């Protein structure tokens, strides 16, 4: 069962391994820039946030952001490329594997890229800046990242499945993904939102992701409600993505 998915994932990992170093350098550049510009450039203007220095406060969000946007990018572009450009999806589809193998393999590949890139950014931030976290907090944090990467990998796969033009995928990134990530608390706590909006904002899965992961890493508090929101979202996203891909392939 799902041997085909495993083969596709293995192929993606082989290809990733060939360009791993340049991929990691590229993925570290942008969060590190944010980190230096906001964390140090604006240091004098920003007081402690929720009791911790701003550089420490923003680190978990930057890592999470890197992981989930890498998962989205990889899934969207890879699916689009394999479907529209080199049409490898069609080569897969005339072998005994099923469409479920294909879509699951691709989702897991996006997820893996997100996770790897998140770890790369975390390592660099930890090494370069001396921000330290309690290792005991890591497990809870990783649970959030894993589920978040899964949700974004599914979202990317849906875009790569339904969108034929690369511009459209670019627009989704700019109009949906980036705002969603930025407004969900990469750079500020949800407590910045007016009291009345807070509950609603918290219910958005991305807020659950960024707030939950930050709390897990900084304070070691594992918020069951937030992880539940995220887990349910991931499950729904996965089911919907598989169904959408299946339908698209049956056209």
């Amino acid at each position, binding site marked *: 069962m799902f041997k085909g998915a495993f*083969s596709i994932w293995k192929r993606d990992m082989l290809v990733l391994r060939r360009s791993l170093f340049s991929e990691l350098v590229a993925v570290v550049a942008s969060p590190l820039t944010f980190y230096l510009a906001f964390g140090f450039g604006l240091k004098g203007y920003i007081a402690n946030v929720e009791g911790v220095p701003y550089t420490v406060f923003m680190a978990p969000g930057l890592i999470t952001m890197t992981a989930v946007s890498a998962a989205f990018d990889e899934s969207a572009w890879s699916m689009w490329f394999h479907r529209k450009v080199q049409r490898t999806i069609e080569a897969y589809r005339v072998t005994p594997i*099923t469409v479920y193998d294909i879509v699951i393999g691709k989702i897991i590949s996006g997820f893996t890229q997100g996770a790897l890139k998140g770890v790369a950014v975390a390592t660099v931030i930890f090494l370069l800046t001396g921000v330290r976290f309690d290792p005991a907090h890591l497990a809870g944090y990783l649970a959030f990242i894993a589920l978040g990467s899964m949700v974004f990998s599914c979202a990317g796969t849906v875009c790569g499945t339904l969108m034929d033009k690369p511009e459209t995928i670019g627009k989704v990134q700019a109009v949906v993904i980036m705002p969603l990530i930025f407004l969900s608390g990469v750079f500020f706590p949800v407590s910045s939102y007016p009291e009345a909006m807070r509950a609603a904002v918290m219910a958005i899965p991305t807020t659950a992701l960024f707030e939950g992961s930050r709390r897990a890493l900084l304070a070691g508090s594992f918020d069951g409600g937030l992880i539940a929101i995220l887990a349910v979202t991931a499950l729904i996203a996965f089911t919907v993505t598989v169904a959408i891909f299946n339908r698209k392939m049956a056209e």
Partner: protein
Amino acid sequence: MASALSLNRLTKRFGSLTAVDSFSLEVERGTIFALLGPNGAGKTTIIRILTTLLRPDAGTAQVEGFDVQQQGKEVRRLIGVVPQENNLDRYLTARENLVMQARLHGMGAAETSRRVDELLELVGLSGRRNDFPDTFSGGMQRRLVVARALVHRPRVLFLDEPTTGLDPQSRRAVWEYVESLKDSMTIFLTTHYMDEADALCDRIVIMDHGRLLVDGSAARLKERMAHAHCYEMQFRANADRYEAILAGLPFVRSLQRTGDLFRLSLAGEEFLKPLMDAVGTDDIRKVCPREPTLEDVFIELTGREVRE
């Protein structure tokens, strides 16, 4: 159940266009079968239905007795596919492309390795096994796609215009491989090249507008044309002027030109004299009757020339 392929009133529509129109066909095991037709005839659509990529709107199709809609997985186990457009993975080397195919067919590591090396040897790509396909010529890429389709030893091989766009040497190479496979599987191919269909295939079906026009061996098809009166004409000079004259004659059924050489078919023997009257004898180098080719059959039936 000796049929490798069995199509029963297969129909596929794209909006208002009926790309495949109630198409029925039986292909016996072990044949090399050619589907001929002009661009847009529906050849690729038929291959896509038979290889489970596309759902028919009506009708049924079986590959080796398995229904393409109900038993897709069983069908896909038995088929090899060379699509019209190469779909190699350009991020994998030649060898890795074949290994990937073996994995997707659930082949074991040892068998994969042996089979892949054997095929690379067969298609003459052993020396380039670790290179990426986008560094290959068109002919080499095509050979790699053919090799990939053979990795799992399919029982039915689909080749959608396997040699279109290749230079003559690569064309010949691809056809040699196809010919060498003859005994081990059923081969279903589409092509624009009449000469090749003629030379290679046991059976030829010509289609247009989604419908089957004629079915038979190359010899039988030419027999059908025996009543058609084909001639070759060559002029010493003024070929352009003669082309216009010939094209204007109502009894000239088809006309093809290569340099100063014309091939034409007449509506009947009795029109030879009016033909000669129309062109005169001043510039004629030669006129001679000619064996009809598949190309003539094709033009006769579809009213169109076959272009790449």
